[in-house]
């Protein structure tokens, strides 16, 4: 019969221990888990990005309920263990459940410390520890304005940042002279404060809270010096205390935490403990990396192998506030026996301090440029003698040896450099997983190695490793098959479609011997595009091979509603259009009306069955589809140009509108954006667009291949022309070359980098005949595909695809 393992605490340490145990001894125990919180196991670290609105609760779940079922673990969620009978070996919970154990694992974590000042029990005083707290804060931010965060440490600053992102005005109150005094020295602490102030955060340092004032709910905070600060909520983030009540109550030896030996065993040999509730060799930890190390050792002993030993951990810290880079580890203050190396560039906002004793690194603080944090941390933990590299130490690992080429820092890292601090994953582990298991995506690497799956701050490094390990394959899969359904590449398939005049997806499947009956979501969407762009007249658009956005002509949102963004030609609108948009927003209760990044207005939250009604109302006032959902022409941004602007040289608005009228409705390999600016001041940002026009006194500069987005690329100057007609002809020709030759889902920027700017220029500029033919083919395609018959109108009143917008049947 299996032995019984009971785990108290469904948090990060407890469940990691269970995962490790399942890995090495899956059949040894019947496992029962008690968790006071009513969820599966989630990544507590990422509550900060959840509060900041950068992640959702769903995204931070580590093990959801089916995981427990699949692994035959009995989970009592929302249930607190209240007693342990160490003689009978049973635990009792607040719902009356009683379970027998052979081994017990305590992983009760810690509790936020609430300063016991008068008023600390008022509604509106919130801690920052679990999902419930985050819900309270997000909820408060909806209706309330002022938040005070007590505590200027890691947790307090992440809370403050999140509340600010939620729209509150936030003041951080801190007892000490500078922020994060346990991770920062005064200089970096001050730099951090200034960056956060620039983001809008307020600070009161050296302030001691005396009382939280309020009548029935929080209204303010009073300080020792008598001053007061108004507040609608107060977040206490002053520290945590190991949660040892239960352990103490049943007589387990505790000091600050539950005392354990190097095998994570408590003074009762049947009871183990891991996580923040533990005190090991006098230390209680509050970061996951050591807890995960404990979990590993503990699992080894629970499995009965008895070989792991936990010797304590050295930790390093990062702050998870987007846009702020800081790193600290070890003793970074130093004393008489140590030396410092310091680099301080206040102009660039960079500060680095390394504390050295007898040629070994004792600690480091990095602010503004943390790329070498992992390296210093490794030198520190291994107590490497740095006398040989001392002069170059501050310039970072990339400057070691004769390489000098900064770029990819990880290429020079040794295999045992730790990349993911949370999960203790080294470079070598990642490289091995990539090569042995044939991994291609970040998600794969996360799934197989756990690297970058906890706090996420090493994501950049992991990506660099992928890049250096996979080489070109990671950046641009050169000769990779389209997908698992075929061995042919995009280029091969497209050439076959053109040369053999294939006009349906099933033609392609038969001719090219597809390996699956119906293809998949990746190849069908690409094939549909290749067919209609190669044979605009002959091929029939297959709506079932289009992504939902293009099939329904609106963007699906995460809650299943849709967004509607009508075209505003060249960014121009009229009172009539604005009124129509306002009316629609009111009539259909669309709460979010957003001015988009593309100079038009987006309506959010439209229910699918109401889309045709919304479109009908918009159509009646002349508004048509903006194709914000499509791999198609999106927007043409313009500035007011010569009409109004004192610097304008040409009618940039007019040419923008003409460009949009020319090309709207045209399907492309990826989205396609244009802009026209009235002078080189370039207010319409034409030089980061797929096709940009910059007006100059003597005519028009035409720019191509710009990209905002993930990787910014400024355009290449294609040529300069004299007349509006030429602008339109070049634009059409360029669009067509891109449509005919780029791979599906390849934007103009990577396409041009792949085929070379000269190639494009030869076709569109140098060869007049070619340009004309391209422009003619563009015009032909626009005409025969009827792409400028408004797809919204076709669905609102033209009876097309009506099945798409109504349920098949409504029961009950």
């Amino acid at each position, binding site marked *: 019969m299996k032995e019984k393992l009971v785990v108290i605490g469904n948090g990060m340490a407890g469940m990691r221990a269970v995962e490790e145990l399942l890995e090495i001894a899956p059949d040894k125990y019947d496992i029962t888990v008690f968790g006071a919180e009513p969820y599966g196991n989630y990544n507590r670290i990422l509550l900060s990005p959840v509060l900041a609105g950068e992640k*959702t609760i*769903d*995204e931070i779940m580590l093990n*959801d309920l*089916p*995981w427990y079922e*699949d692994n035959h673990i009995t989970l009592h969620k929302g249930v607190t263990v209240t007693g342990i009978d160490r003689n009978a070996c049973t635990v009792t919970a607040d719902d009356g459940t009683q379970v027998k154990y052979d081994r017990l694992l305590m992983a009760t974590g810690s509790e936020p410390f609430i300063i016991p000042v008068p008023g600390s029990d008022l509604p509106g005083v919130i801690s920052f520890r679990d999902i419930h707290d985050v819900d309270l804060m997000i909820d408060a931010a909806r209706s309330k304005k002022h938040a005070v965060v007590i505590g200027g440490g890691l947790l307090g600053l992440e809370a403050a940042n999140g509340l600010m992102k939620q729209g509150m005005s936030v003041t951080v109150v801190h007892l000490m002279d500078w922020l994060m005094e346990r991770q920062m020295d005064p200089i970096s602490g001050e730099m951090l404060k200034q960056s956060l102030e620039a983001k809008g955060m307020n600070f009161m340092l050296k302030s001691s809270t005396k009382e939280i004032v309020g009548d029935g709910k929080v209204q303010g905070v009073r300080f020792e010096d008598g001053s007061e600060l108004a507040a609608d909520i107060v977040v206490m983030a002053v520290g945590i205390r190991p949660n040892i009540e239960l352990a103490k109550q049943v007589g387990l030896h505790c000091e600050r935490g539950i005392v354990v030996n190097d095998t994570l065993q408590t003074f009762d040999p049947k009871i183990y403990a891991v996580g923040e509730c533990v005190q090991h060799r006098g230390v209680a930890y509050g970061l996951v990396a050591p807890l995960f190390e404990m979990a590993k050792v503990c699992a080894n002993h629970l499995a009965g192998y008895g070989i792991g030993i936990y010797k304590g951990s050295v930790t390093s810290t990062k702050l998870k506030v987007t846009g702020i880079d800081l790193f600290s580890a070890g003793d970074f203050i130093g004393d008489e026996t140590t030396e410092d190396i310091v680099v301080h560039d206040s102009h660039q906002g960079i500060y680095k301090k390394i504390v050295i004793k007898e040629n070994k690194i004792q600690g480091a603080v990095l602010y503004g440029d943390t790329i070498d944090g992992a390296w210093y941390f490794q030198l520190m933990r291994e107590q490497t003698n740095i006398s040989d590299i001392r002069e170059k130490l501050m310039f970072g690992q990339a400057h070691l040896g004769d390489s000098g080429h900064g770029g990819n820092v990880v290429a020079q890292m040794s295999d045992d450099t730790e990349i993911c601090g949370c999960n203790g994953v080294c470079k070598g582990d990642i490289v091995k997983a990539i090569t042995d298991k044939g991994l291609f995506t970040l998600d*794969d690497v996360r*799934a197989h190695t756990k690297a970058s799956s906890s706090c996420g701050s090493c994501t950049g490094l992991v990506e660099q490793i992928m890049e250096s390990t996979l080489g070109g394959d990671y950046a641009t899969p050169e000769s990779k098959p389209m997908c698992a359904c075929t061995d042919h590449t995009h280029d091969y398939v497209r050439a076959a479609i053109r040369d053999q005049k294939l006009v349906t997806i099933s033609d392609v499947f038969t001719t090219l011997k597809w390996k*699956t*009956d*119906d*293809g*998949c*979501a990746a190849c*069908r*969407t690409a094939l549909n595009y290749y067919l209609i762009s190669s044979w605009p007249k002959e091929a029939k658009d297959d*709506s*079932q*091979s289009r*992504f*939902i956005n293009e099939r*329904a002509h609106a963007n*699906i949102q*995460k809650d*299943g509603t849709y967004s509607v963004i009508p075209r505003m030609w060249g960014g121009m609108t009229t009172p009539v259009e604005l009124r129509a948009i306002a009316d629609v927003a009111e009539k259909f209760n669309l709460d979010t009306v957003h001015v988009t990044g593309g100079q038009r207005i987006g309506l959010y939250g439209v229910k699918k069955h109401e889309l045709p009604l919304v479109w009908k109302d918009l159509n009646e006032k002349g508004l048509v589809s903006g194709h914000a959902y499509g791999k198609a022409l999106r927007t043409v941004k313009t500035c007011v140009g010569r009409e109004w602007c004192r610097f304008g040289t040409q009618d940039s608005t007019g040419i923008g509108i003409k460009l949009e009228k020319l090309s709207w409705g045209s399907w492309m390999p990826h989205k396609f954006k244009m802009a026209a600016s009235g002078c080189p001041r370039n207010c319409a940002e034409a030089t980061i667009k797929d096709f940009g026009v910059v007006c100059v006194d003597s005519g028009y500069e035409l720019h191509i291949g710009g990209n905002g987005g993930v990787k910014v690329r400024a355009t290449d100057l294609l040529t300069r022309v004299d007349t509006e007609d030429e602008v339109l002809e070049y634009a059409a020709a360029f669009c067509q070359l891109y449509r005919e030759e780029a791979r599906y889902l390849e934007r103009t920027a990577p396409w041009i980098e792949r085929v070379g700017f000269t190639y494009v220029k030869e076709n569109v500029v140098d060869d007049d005949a070619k340009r004309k033919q391209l422009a003619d083919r563009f015009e032909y395609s626009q005409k025969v595909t009827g792409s400028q018959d408004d797809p919204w109108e076709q669905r609102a009143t033209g009876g097309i695809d009506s*099945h798409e917008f109504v*349920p*098949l*049947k*409504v*029961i*009950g």
Partner: protein
Amino acid sequence: MSNWIEVGKIEDIPALGARVVKNGNVDIAVFRNNKDEVFAVNDECPHRKGQLSQGIVHDKSVTCPLHNWKIDLTTGEAMGPDEGCTGHYAVKVENGNIFLELK
């Protein structure tokens, strides 16, 4: 006790497409593939509740529109490296009419 309910005709659903049947508060996605087989699963992806009825259908599976998980339409189970399951329903087609078994 089984309870077969007629929900529509097979040609009401495009081949390699889907339609929704609203059963009280529950949306059921009903799929038709290229071989005129019909499947029904809850219209809720086990990942983050994406509406599977809006996905791309191939063979006996659908790709969720939100993050591309693939769901086996015969079982409602996520395929490949992903894990999770959404409920599925028994379906029969008689004379072109689709029936779902609802409990």
